[in-house]
C-alpha cells in the first residue's frame, strides 16, 4: 500500500514476478474452464474505456441546471443517477452529498477502497493508499492542502467513511460566472476530485 519510493531494480523484478504469476494463474483458470478470456477483456474495456468520472460530471452538471433533477438526486440518488443510464456494481446504493458555502463533504474508505464505480469509474491509486485512508478522517484540511485546496476556517468539513455498501458522490458548488451555461459546458468544469471532495469544481 505504500506510495513511497522503492529501489528501482527491486521494483522492476518484483513486478515481473507478479506479471508472470498473474499470467500463469489466468492460463490455469482458462484451461479449467472457470474463466473465458473474452469476458475478461470486456470487463477491462468497460472500466478502461466506458465507465469513468465523465459519468459523474454529467450528473453534477444536470443537478446544477435542473432544479427538479437536483431535488430527485438528493432524495433518492440511485434512481436519479439511473435516469442517465448509470447503475450497477459498486453503485447499487448511492447517496449524493451537497456541498454548501458552509459545509464541504469528503469521501474516504478507511477499511478498503469503496468508491462509486458507475459514476466515477475505478478509484485512483491515492484514494486506495495508506496516506489518504489514514489521514482523511483525522486531518481532512491537511489532506486538502496536499491537493492544493484551502477552505475558509469557518467552513465545516464532513468526512464520510464508506464502511458499508452505500456509495457517496459529492455534488460540488457550482462556480460563479457560469450563468446560462449548457450542461455539456458545465460538465467540463467538474473534476473527479471535486466529486470525491478532495477538490473543487474548476473556475471558468
Amino acid at each position, binding site marked *: 500500500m*505504500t506510495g513511497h519510493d522503492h529501489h528501482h531494480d527491486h521494483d522492476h523484478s518484483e513486478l515481473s514476478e507478479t506479471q508472470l504469476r498473474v499470467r500463469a*494463474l489466468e492460463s490455469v483458470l482458462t484451461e*479449467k474452464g*472457470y474463466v473465458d478470456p473474452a469476458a475478461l477483456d470486456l470487463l477491462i474495456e468497460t*472500466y478502461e474505456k466506458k465507465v469513468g468520472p465523465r459519468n459523474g460530471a454529467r450528473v453534477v452538471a444536470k443537478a446544477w441546471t435542473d432544479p427538479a433533477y437536483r431535488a430527485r438526486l438528493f432524495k433518492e440518488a440511485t434512481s436519479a443517477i439511473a435516469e442517465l443510464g448509470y447503475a450497477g456494481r459498486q453503485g447499487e446504493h448511492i447517496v449524493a452529498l451537497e456541498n454548501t458555502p458552509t459545509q464541504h463533504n469528503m469521501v474516504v474508505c478507511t477499511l478498503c477502497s469503496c468508491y462509486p464505480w458507475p459514476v466515477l469509474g475505478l478509484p485512483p491509486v491515492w484514494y486506495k493508499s495508506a496516506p489518504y485512508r489514514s489521514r482523511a478522517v483525522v486531518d481532512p484540511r491537511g489532506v486538502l492542502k496536499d491537493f492544493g485546496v484551502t477552505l475558509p476556517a469557518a467552513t465545516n*468539513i*464532513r468526512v464520510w467513511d464508506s464502511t*458499508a455498501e452505500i456509495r457517496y458522490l459529492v455534488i460540488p458548488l457550482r462556480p460563479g460566472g457560469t450563468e446560462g451555461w449548457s450542461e455539456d459546458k458545465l460538465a467540463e468544469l467538474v473534476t473527479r476530485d471535486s466529486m470525491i471532495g478532495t477538490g473543487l469544481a474548476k473556475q471558468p
Partner: protein
Amino acid sequence: MNGAQDLGGMHGFGPVVPEPNEPVFHSEWERRAFALTLAMAMPGAWNIDMSRFARENRPPAEYLAMSYYQVWFAALETMLKQRELVADDEIVAGRSLHAPKPVTRTLTPGDVAQVLYRGAPTERATKSAATFKAGDTVRAKTINPLTHTRLPRYVRGRTGTIERVIGYHVFPDSNALGAGENPQWLYTVRFEGRELWGGDADASVTVSVDAWEPYLERA
C-alpha cells in the same frame, strides 16, 4: 479483525500524492488481476465480504508493503486454494494438472454488461422495526473480533448521533463467514471530530461511518 486495512487515524504514511493524468491501470497484470477477480466470483461462489476478508487477513507488514492489486491477486489465490479450485503445483506450473472442480456458473462475454449493470444490491425486505431513529445518541461498541468486521477501530467506544436510518442490509460480519446474510438495520452515525481525536482536534470536522445495529448501543 484488527489488521493493517483499518487505517483510519494512523500516522506516518506521509502526504497524499495524486498522480496527474493517472491511467486506470498501471500495467497489463493489473488489468488481468482485476478482471480475474471479478470473473471468478461467479464460479468461486464467494461474496464481497469473503473477498475483503481474504485481502485484509495477512500480516500487517505484508499488507502495507503490497500494492493494491497485489493484495487483490494474493486474495484471489487464497480463495481459489481454499476452495480447491486450483492447487499450488498448478500455480507453479502455469497449467492445469488436476481435473477441474465442477462449478455451477461461469461468466460469459454475453453476461458481462448485464452482470455489471445489475450489481449486487445489499438491501433486504423486513417486517422488523429499526431500534434507533435519527437524532438518537449512540455509542459504537468496543469489539475486537478476529474475523471480518466493518466497524473501524477509531470509532469503537465513541459516542455519536444517528443521522439517518439507511435500511436493512446484509451484515458483513456474518456474510464473510459464510454464515448467511443475517441482514440488520444500517445507520449513518455522525461523530464530532473532538469526540474521536480529543480536545485539540479541529472543531469544524465531523466524521460519519455507516454502522449496522449490532455495532451500536444506546448512550
